[in-house]
């Protein structure tokens, strides 16, 4: 019980610390900007640790973070294999295919208005098909390997990417388009020199959404059949063995991979769309 009390005190203390750090103009300091979320994260972990120990929660229900960390460290080769299987093979290849297909389709949809009016409503209906329903079908079609995971990811990322890109391609002002017309520019120059650059911020928005979906999709698809490797397989199999520390270690791999991909995309976005007001602060 004292541990739980300690957890409560810790929480209040950390909150006060963060409150102090963010008051006034202190929050402009770079170090503070980094420290505040870290303090929050560390506090959550410590509170978790203390509560689990304090209340004696069985490991079969919720392991303490320290144990998860230990398991993670002790099983790096195994988890690396899972990472390669799920993230590198399944998620990223699916993401690449899905994004490429969406970009091409977006240009077509943008070019032919009939397609836009016909495809987008039907597409939004298709996008509403829950992946937990489509995943078993895709596993049946594409086998147990990473290919079916990639297929699930393609299905998941295609539509958000398409919608964002189409919106982006249309996000030019009348003035910008008129300018092109006064130059006597045809479709392709307008596309390449105006619409695509203008669409980039939207494309990155879509990419950010798509990347998280891709991670989740690849992991979930493994629940419906997989080789004996992969993050989803590890979560499911370890859960059945009540090795919850391993389950959380696998989740950690997924979260780390997801955050890393998200971070990389944000960096590329900053680099490519440096000109957009949202990137200029």
């Amino acid at each position, binding site marked *: 019980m004292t541990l739980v009390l300690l957890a409560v005190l810790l929480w209040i203390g950390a909150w006060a610390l963060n409150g102090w750090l963010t008051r006034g103009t202190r929050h402009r300091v770079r170090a503070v900007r980094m420290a505040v979320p870290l303090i929050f994260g560390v506090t959550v972990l410590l509170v978790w640790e203390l509560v689990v120990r304090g209340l004696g929660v*069985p490991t079969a*229900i919720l392991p303490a973070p320290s144990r998860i960390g230990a398991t993670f460290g002790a099983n790096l080769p195994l988890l690396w294999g899972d990472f390669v299987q799920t993230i590198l093979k399944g998620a990223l290849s699916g993401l690449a295919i899905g994004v490429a297909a969406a970009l091409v389709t977006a240009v077509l949809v943008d070019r032919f208005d009939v397609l836009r009016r016909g495809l987008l409503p039907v597409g939004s209906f298709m996008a509403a098909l829950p992946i937990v329903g489509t995943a078993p079908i895709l596993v*049946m079609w594409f086998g147990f390997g990473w290919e079916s995971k990639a297929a699930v990811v393609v299905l998941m990322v295609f539509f958000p990417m398409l919608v964002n890109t189409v919106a982006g391609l249309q996000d030019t002002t009348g003035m910008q388009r008129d300018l092109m017309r006064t130059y006597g520019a045809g479709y392709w120059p307008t596309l390449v020199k105006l619409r695509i650059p203008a669409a980039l911020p939207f494309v990155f928005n879509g990419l950010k959404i798509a990347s998280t979906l891709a991670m989740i999709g690849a992991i979930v698809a493994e*629940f419906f059949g997989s*080789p*004996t490797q992969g993050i989803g*397989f590890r979560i499911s199999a370890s859960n*059945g063995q*009540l*090795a919850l520390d391993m389950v959380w270690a696998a989740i950690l791999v997924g979260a780390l991979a997801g955050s890393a991909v998200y971070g990389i995309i944000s960096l590329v976005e900053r680099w490519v769309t440096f000109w957009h007001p949202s990137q200029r602060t």
Partner: protein
Amino acid sequence: QDAVTLQLKWVTQAQFAGYYVALDQGFYEEENLDVTILPGGPDIAPTQVIAGGGADVVVEWMPAALAAREQGVPLVNVAQPFQGSGMQLTCWADTGITAPEDLKNRTLGVWFFGNEYPFLSWMSQLGIATDGKDEDGVEVLKQGFNVDPLLQRQADCISTMTYNEYNQVLEAGVTPEELVNFKYEEQGVATLEDGLYVLEENLQDPAFVDKMARFVRASMKGWQWAEGNPEEAAQIVLDNDETGAQTIEHQVSMMTEVSKLIGESTGELDPAAYERTVATLMAGGSDPVITAAPEGAWTHAVTDAALAQ
């Protein structure tokens, strides 16, 4: 009335007919019990449910129960309605597989989630590696929920239960002649399935033991009734299935096969079968399922009390 929550290992089907019949026919009520049956499903681990206090008693396979015991969830077998094991490996005959040695260099579908232990023991006894397709190894797939991997020939063999998946393969139009079965029982690696397990600490309480005794008595009565009336039992199962997805034909055939596994069971655990299971699990080569022979993993206290009347 005493409340009892039973967590099943899998979805509502004739595999658990005894319990549903006991509930439906009022056998539990006669024993002054108020029983709630929680159906299971994929990725629901009964061991986890009971560890978290979500159930008083669970239906579980012994390998998973003993493994959980080593993980710090002290489960104790209080009754064993299933005497036989229904697990088998079903292969296409036209792949040329006739004996266990032929499994090398094949793709096999296996259930995980704690159901992989018998398979892994068997393979290690055969000296077959499970980490890839080669001269003395097999490629293992985490089999999904159905028999499609076999029908689609994504795997050469898949795990089936005599009472369920095997029938599904046949229902899909495949003739028994097209198939080859390796029953775990015949391979000498059978492990006990579908026993009733409770938490060890609860057994200190005589009232709890008494409650379980009444529960087991009523459940076995349900099983006997189900064996005698397979059609009605199947219908009761169907009525309790909240998904409304089961078919009566399949449940009747499942009931018939399950009856074979129960046989003349009184619910009492056969210590010899227990020892056999433990031996199989400990024989798992470099990576045995359990590392030491468990102590106090079963008791006759409940069945004794149940049968005393």
